[in-house]
């Protein structure tokens, strides 16, 4: 939330994420120094990391096992005979991505998730950057009050909007369309986006903007040429947040997209969970189709993600 905002995305401290060697190397507060961990600490952390990853490993192993193997024995039993190729298969992935007949098609759900998540990430950023510019570099009546309202709205849960929206969308006839989810996510992500960008922009040197003005640049030009390029760290942080949030969302997708042609990965995977008979062996591979993008995004952009979090990224 806001407690860390001095450390904000733009703060000179830059946030002690673990990629900053200078801070990592700094002496530990327990007076024992980095790299001083005794065997007890190492063992505890080792056990913890193992516990943390065992469920993921189990599912990963299962996703490559044929139906009879998956249902006939636990995933750990592959240890007995890991090289027996008859116990491994790629057909789960093939079936789950390419199925056309009625079943859950994760391939198409995957594309739908992209269609939902990309505009639902880019549009709020665009809208919020313009607003943040106005909140930071323009003088207008009511500015501060409007911003305080936005800060308050940060903690409001999305559920407040759902009852009337479902009704409104029904009247407009846009239920089950991408437009419906885009609009909802644009609205729900907006307070956080404006908040993060405004906090970041207020750390930019005012003199630079003044001199652009003297040189005759309009607000529009200053915005695109100066502010947007300088705000990249904040934009990256929020983009990752919003993308993961939208991609992983179940409730909004369930209400406004449902289980039809436009269904997304979370809803499709949830639909598979009820499977008891045919198709049950597809659940693990379907899960990996659903989580692979967030994991890649997360691992490759971890630095920005952490910056966003420590800058006060909370979403009601």
């Amino acid at each position, binding site marked *: 939330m806001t407690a860390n905002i001095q450390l904000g995305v733009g703060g000179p401290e830059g946030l002690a994420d673990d990629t900053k060697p200078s801070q990592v190397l700094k002496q530990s507060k327990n007076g*024992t120094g980095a790299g001083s961990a005794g065997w007890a600490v190492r063992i505890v952390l080792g056990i913890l990391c193992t516990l943390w990853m065992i469920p993921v490993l189990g599912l990963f192993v299962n996703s490559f096992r044929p139906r009879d193997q998956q249902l006939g024995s636990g*995933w750990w039993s592959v240890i007995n005979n890991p090289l027996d190729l008859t116990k491994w298969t790629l057909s789960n992935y093939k079936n789950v991505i390419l199925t056309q007949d009625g079943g859950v098609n994760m391939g*198409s759900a995957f*594309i739908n998730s992209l269609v939902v998540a990309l505009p639902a990430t880019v549009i709020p950023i665009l809208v919020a950057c313009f607003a943040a*510019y106005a909140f930071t570099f323009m003088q207008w009546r009511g500015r501060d009050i409007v911003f305080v309202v936005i800060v308050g709205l940060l903690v409001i849960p999305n*559920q407040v*909007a759902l*009852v009337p929206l479902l009704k409104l969308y029904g009247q407009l006839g846009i239920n089950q369309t991408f437009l419906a989810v885009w609009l909802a996510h644009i609205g729900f992500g907006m307070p956080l986006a404006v908040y993060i960008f405004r906090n970041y922009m207020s750390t930019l040197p005012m003199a630079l903007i003044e001199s652009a003005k003297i040189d005759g640049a309009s607000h529009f030009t200053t915005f695109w040429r100066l502010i947007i390029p300088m705000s990249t760290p904040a934009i990256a942080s929020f983009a990752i947040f919003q993308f993961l949030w939208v991609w992983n969302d179940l409730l909004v997708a369930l209400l406004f997209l449902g289980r039809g042609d436009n269904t997304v990965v979370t809803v499709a995977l949830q639909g598979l969970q009820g499977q008891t008979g045919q198709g049950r062996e597809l659940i693990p591979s379907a*899960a990996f189709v659903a989580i692979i993008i967030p994991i890649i995004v997360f691992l490759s952009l971890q630095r920005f993600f952490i910056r966003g979090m420590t800058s006060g990224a909370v979403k009601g």
Partner: protein
Amino acid sequence: MALKIVNALLAIIGGIGGAMLIFWILNKLSESLKGRWEDRVKPWMFAGPAILAIAVFLIYPAITTLQYSFANDQTTSYVGFQNYIDLFSDPTFRTALFNNVLWIILVPVITVGFGLLVAILTDRLRPRGEKLTKTIIFLPMAISMVGAATIWSTIFSFQPAGSPQTGLLNAALGIFGKDPVSWYQTSTLRLNSLLLMVILIWTQVGYSMVLLSSAIKAVPEDTVEAGRIDGAGERRIFTSIIVPQIWGTMVTVFITVLIGVMKVFDIVYVVTNGGFNTDVIGRRFYDELFTFRNNGYAASIVVILMIAIIPVLIYQVRHFRAEELAR
């Protein structure tokens, strides 16, 4: 499939392009105005779309929801406080509310505590070890609740006695000759709710760890040094010097997790769909809104949630004001 991909690309480009076009037009419009009017109108052209989005998708629906909560299921006539009376006299709703309280008491505290522990321990590792450990603990944060629920089935899954067990816990019980337990259906001492909490905590500890770790690293070395010179032990240094300085961050993490837990929905919906005494108000809300189409009940559940969140909202605004002054 090819057609689907083309359509998808068109939808993405159309959505994003449309948004850009709107701003271009708004800017042209305000530039066509002369002199002072341009300065007056422009802020609203820039901030307007965001304010509009917030008004249409948060403020207006919040007010409408309040109104709906005093009306019947199809919002055709007002029923006063009847929805609230019905809800609170419904034992299944009280169960959901009780479970929510349990989630609220346990999950934020455990998440902060666990995150603090990992943050302190990893602080003593060498940089590479620290980074690897943190990445592992942090990774579940990227995984959706549906994904997490699927992942944990490799631990909690249950098959009737006699058939091969595919869940790690029941297989372990089998080794000791015990009968398998249907974990998610066992509500003794709210065991199943606790297991659902484990899954949520698994996804949240990384967040708590990262924030607390950066707070610990930001504690000035000389304050710790001063304590040491005064003869304080490691434990005393931790409780009297480090904790007070990272307290703000601990509160932040606590509140963030708290808000998430208050409206918890996905994990319960996916795993038990609220059965076996695991219901929470977030899932009940979905049921009332979507399954039973009862706008009155759904709206009053949201209003209860809103009232519960008001203290957090006040804290948030106060905190923001204090920080603006300190700027």
